[in-house]
């Protein structure tokens, strides 16, 4: 029994770590444009986003019924498979953060789980058609719809207001951005904060520590809310730089158009039964707003790198999740080994990031996130570090 408790504790710890990476990965979604236009100072922006994320996590009372939305068969999933899936998701989140690539944390979690379930339960545990309808199709739809809407909105602003980028108009747009960015952060807290609560609750139920059909316990809500809030507060500045400066130079009016579009798309998708990834919506909005403002030059190279990142998310997280499952399913020693590998891998990625760190002080200084400062003129493809 103590072994079960140990494994369950390890899985919960890993779930909270994932929640933390989810927070700093998605901080940029809500706040990158506000930081880039100077509507909010970087530190202020992440504090607001963090508070709203925690508030959002507490607001949402309905528990996610399935952790994966039917992508994997939840009946065959064991705590160790969830653990392996989380390991894959965390490592992919950290690797994409190192490259400053915004990628969907939900997709990373799904990818990790798919890999782990394929190894642990075989192909019958995975619903491949749901992968197409719930991940691949929305991944194409999200940036296109958000890009179109933000593009039209931005085009309209600059048609109507010739001096939208000058004072006093710009001041009003910056003010509006504070509201629109906050809405994204709040919506994010209610959806993603809940995700980890659902995972932890499922682990507790399958291990027999909690009755089936009951909601998350209070300490689960508190720790999951705090983990995502702390993650958001830490900023994920590398991704913030790419979103705010790397795709296109963002003016205040354009930032308002992008954020309003993102908020509208997220709310519409969560209430009309066609889930879209927040990250892909926000990136699409920013690109669209860049196309809509005639004098802005969208850096399509960055957009292309992001698209590669999105394509790789599922298979890469799945591969790591599968390997982790193969080792962890051998027994408690395997679980400990995988956990040690997770710690070592995370530490390595963090050490590499220190070569050219990005913080709240220098987030707006350059559009590029570099891995190797000595070779910074050579853009590094994201898969180069996967070896």
């Amino acid at each position, binding site marked *: 029994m103590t072994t079960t408790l140990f494994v369950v504790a390890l899985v919960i710890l890993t779930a909270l770590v994932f929640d933390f990476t989810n927070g700093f990965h998605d901080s940029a979604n809500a706040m990158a444009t506000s930081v880039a236009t100077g509507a909010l100072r970087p530190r202020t922006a992440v504090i607001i986003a963090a508070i709203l994320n925690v508030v*959002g996590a507490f*607001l*949402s*009372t*309905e528990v996610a019924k399935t952790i994966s939305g039917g992508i994997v068969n939840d009946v065959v999933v064991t705590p160790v498979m969830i653990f392996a899936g989380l390991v894959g998701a965390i490592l992919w989140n950290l690797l994409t953060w190192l490259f400053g690539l915004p990628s969907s944390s939900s997709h990373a979690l799904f990818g990790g789980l798919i890999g782990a379930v394929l190894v642990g339960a075989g192909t019958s545990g995975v619903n491949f*058609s749901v992968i*197409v*309808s719930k991940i691949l*199709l929305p991944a194409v*739809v999200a940036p296109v*719809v*958000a890009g*179109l*809407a*933000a593009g*039209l*909105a*931005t085009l*309209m*602003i600059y048609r*109507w*207001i010739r*001096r*939208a980028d000058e004072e*006093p*108009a710009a001041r*009003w*747009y910056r003010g*509006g951005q504070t*509201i*629109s960015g906050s*809405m994204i952060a*709040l*919506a994010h807290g*209610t959806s993603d904060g809940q995700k980890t609560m659902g995972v932890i609750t499922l682990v507790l139920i399958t291990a027999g520590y909690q009755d089936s059909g009951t909601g998350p316990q209070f300490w689960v809500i508190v720790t999951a809310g705090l983990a995502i809030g702390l993650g958001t507060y830490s900023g994920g500045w590398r991704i913030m730089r790419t979103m705010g400066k790397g795709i296109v130079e963002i003016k205040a*009016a354009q930032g*308002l*158009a992008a954020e*309003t*579009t993102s*908020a*509208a*798309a997220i*709310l*519409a*998708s969560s*209430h*009309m*039964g*066609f889930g*879209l990834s927040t990250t892909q919506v926000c990136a699409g909005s920013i690109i669209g707003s860049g196309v809509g403002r005639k004098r802005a030059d969208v850096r399509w190279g960055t957009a292309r790198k992001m698209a590669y990142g999105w394509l790789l998310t599922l298979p890469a997280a799945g591969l790591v999740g599968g390997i982790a499952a193969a080792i962890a399913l051998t027994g408690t020693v395997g679980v400990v080994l995988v956990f040690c590998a997770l710690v070592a891998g995370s530490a390595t990625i963090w050490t590499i990031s220190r070569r050219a760190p990005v913080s709240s002080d220098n987030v707006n200084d350059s559009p590029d996130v570099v891995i190797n400062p000595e070779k910074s003129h050579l853009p590094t493809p994201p898969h180069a570090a996967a070896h």
Partner: protein
Amino acid sequence: MKIDWASLGLVAITTVVAAVSIVGIFSIGVAALTTATTRTSAGRSAGVSRVAGYGCLGVAGLIALYGIYLIVPAFH
């Protein structure tokens, strides 16, 4: 494979219409307030443009409140 094309279309149309309308209303407000500022700094009366401007921003604010209503499950 079941793809919910109806929901997809609805989400797409709602997003485009909502984004363009909200940004539009907000921008009319900004344009009106900019006109008001230009007028007052030229020594003339701001006229109705200031009232119209704040009115538009108010409407945009109400839409934001509706967004919060949608986000918080306890409200519905």
